[in-house]
């Protein structure tokens, strides 16, 4: 058992005055030590919520009502906020999409980076400063001694993201959760930041849970990938295998709808329609309203998990004779 994090049958919902909405429905995945796992999906698929659940930072009203989140052998999904604050920042750290809103504008970046150390490791102020400068240097901030006293607004977007990374990694966590860390950045800066994260990851022997909507980023950084749609896992497995042989109609549709750099297509293949809202989720497979291969059973019963090489949740691959007809899968 080399798993640093395993998420088992996690379900998350929101309670409100008129009832309950299920947002994340029975998702499972695991990350081994030093591995990179990407969760990919479109807006509203629940990928960010999953990452927040791992951090114990669900927004108000959100509640884990089933499943476990096991970090290094202990279930952290039922821990109190006080217990979690021992883990957050020290064992599991997080970086966000918008470094400007994640940093405190009233404190210098040096203060914010060294604060993490002073809280978790009880080091002296002087020692914290030294280590913080060292960390800022490591994330590629030029002349960190000078930058130490600067405020977030004095830095560019790329530099701010570097500061966020320095804050997240200063206690050498076992797992870094990165929620769209490069989405707000330009491609050339994105390339710099992704390279930096990869380097630090191997240097610190740290696992990475990367949340992104960009399939290109997934393909180039992940060991394993979870494809989510409307709060459910549709496909999960080794990145290379999943991208060369995608099985779920959604994954295929997603890959096909990106304009390609190496070929010309007149008309892009699309996925018809849009994601249903949480209140009108179909029974059974949630992709059924947009799936070109939907069968009768798909709208009635939740698709089974089929593991053939990698995991796919789809009736098309079921060995059970679904209503006598066997649609040709190759056409997808």
């Amino acid at each position, binding site marked *: 058992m080399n798993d640093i994090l395993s998420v088992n049958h996690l379900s998350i919902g929101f309670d409100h005055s008129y009832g309950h909405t299920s947002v994340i429905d029975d998702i499972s995945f695991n990350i081994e030590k030093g591995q990179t796992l990407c969760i990919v999906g*479109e*807006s509203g698929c629940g990928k960010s919520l999953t990452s927040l659940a791992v951090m114990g930072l669900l927004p108000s009203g959100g509640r884990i009502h089933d499943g476990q989140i096991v970090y290094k052998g202990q279930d952290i999904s039922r821990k109190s906020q006080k217990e979690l604050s021992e883990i957050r920042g020290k064992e599991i750290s997080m970086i966000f999409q918008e470094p400007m809103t994640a940093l405190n504008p009233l404190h210098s970046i040096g203060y914010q980076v060294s604060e993490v150390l002073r809280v978790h490791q009880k080091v002296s102020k002087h020692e914290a400063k030294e280590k913080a400068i060292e960390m800022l240097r490591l994330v590629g901030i030029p002349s960190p001694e000078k930058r130490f006293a600067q405020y977030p607004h004095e830095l*560019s977007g*790329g*530099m701010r993201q570097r500061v966020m990374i320095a804050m997240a990694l200063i206690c050498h966590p076992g797992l870094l959760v990165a929620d769209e860390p490069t989405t707000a950045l*330009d*491609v*050339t*800066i*994105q*390339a*710099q930041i*992704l*390279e930096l994260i990869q380097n630090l990851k191997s240097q610190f022997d740290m696992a990475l849970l990367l949340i992104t*909507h*960009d*399939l*290109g*980023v*997934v*393909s*180039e*950084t992940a060991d394993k990938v979870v494809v989510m749609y409307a709060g459910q896992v549709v496909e999960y497995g080794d990145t290379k295998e999943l*991208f*060369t042989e995608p099985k779920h109609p959604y994954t295929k*549709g*997603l*890959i096909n*709808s*990106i*304009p*390609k*750099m*190496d070929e010309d*297509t*007149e*008309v*892009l*293949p*699309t*996925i018809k329609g*849009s994601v249903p809202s949480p209140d009108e989720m179909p029974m059974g497979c949630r992709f059924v309203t947009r799936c070109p291969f939907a069968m009768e059973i798909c709208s009635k019963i939740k698709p089974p998990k089929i593991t053939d090489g990698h995991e796919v949740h789809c009736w098309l691959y079921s060995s059970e004779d679904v209503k006598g007809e066997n649609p040709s899968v190759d056409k997808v």
Partner: protein
Amino acid sequence: MLIKSETPEPEKILEVKDLKKFFDIKQGFVGLGHQTVRAVDDVSFFVNKGETLGIVGESGCGKSTMGRSILQLQKPTDGSVLFEGIELTKLKNGQIRKLRKDIQMVFQDPFGSLNPRITIGTMLREIVNTHHVVNKTESKSYVEELLEQVGLKKSYYDRYAHEFSGGQRQRISIARALAVRPKLIVCDEAVSALDVSVQAQILNLLQKLKKDYELTYLFISHDLSVIKHVSDRVAVMYLGQIVELASKEEIFEHPLHPYLRALLSAIPLVNQPKRERIILSGEVPSPINIPEGCRFHTRCPFAKDLCKQKVPAFEQKKDGHWAACHFA
């Protein structure tokens, strides 16, 4: 008639010459610390009738400011913008308003650019009536037809903007641009806020409308793969200037400028073997303090002494392939 006959040879619909847009910032004591942001700094290009010219560049390169300056939404500091031979920069506000019927714009944020207080039917009809596109009695059916053209239902006429998803809102923005039967549409990051599956739907819609209505697009985006998909010719901008311009086939197969080569190598791709990556050091310099010589030299991995001293001319390196680099 909506559909016109085809023109045999390319005819320039838009010609931009030496366009400049500077912004003054006053700082310090009674504005003594006077500085200038050179957002668009001497840009020239043309767009042929019926083609799509893609403008690509990173944030802050001036591509959006350029789009706005062409439409005279922001008065250019200097230079000329010729639309079908008419000099837009010299026109008075009233005259420009009439010409806006021919040039329309689609913006990035479909949440910020639609009026939340009126139904989309009312909004579209108002535009149609203001510009006298059709007879007032026919305007409702015209708008309904328009909604169907952009892939929405007629029955959406009475709905408000907040009732629609991001992709549908972008369809409404496109309907609004289309309502006055324009000749040129400036799309400013029109698909950037959308998820890929929806982005593909909107890109297909834009391509279809281009054929149906014989439109010309000036398509501004930061996304090279989107630009490659929609464009006939592509211009690459860096720090307020065009650094490379050529046909789509030429520019993506034989990129000349180190900046474009770096951009191309930096995009993460699906199912591609690891490429040799040109990682650019540092960040885009501020448009207040533009570097001497070639403005890309501070980040260029191939920069030589010459680049620091002499500004490279934007010249034709091959047939129809323009670039601003000493060593391209």
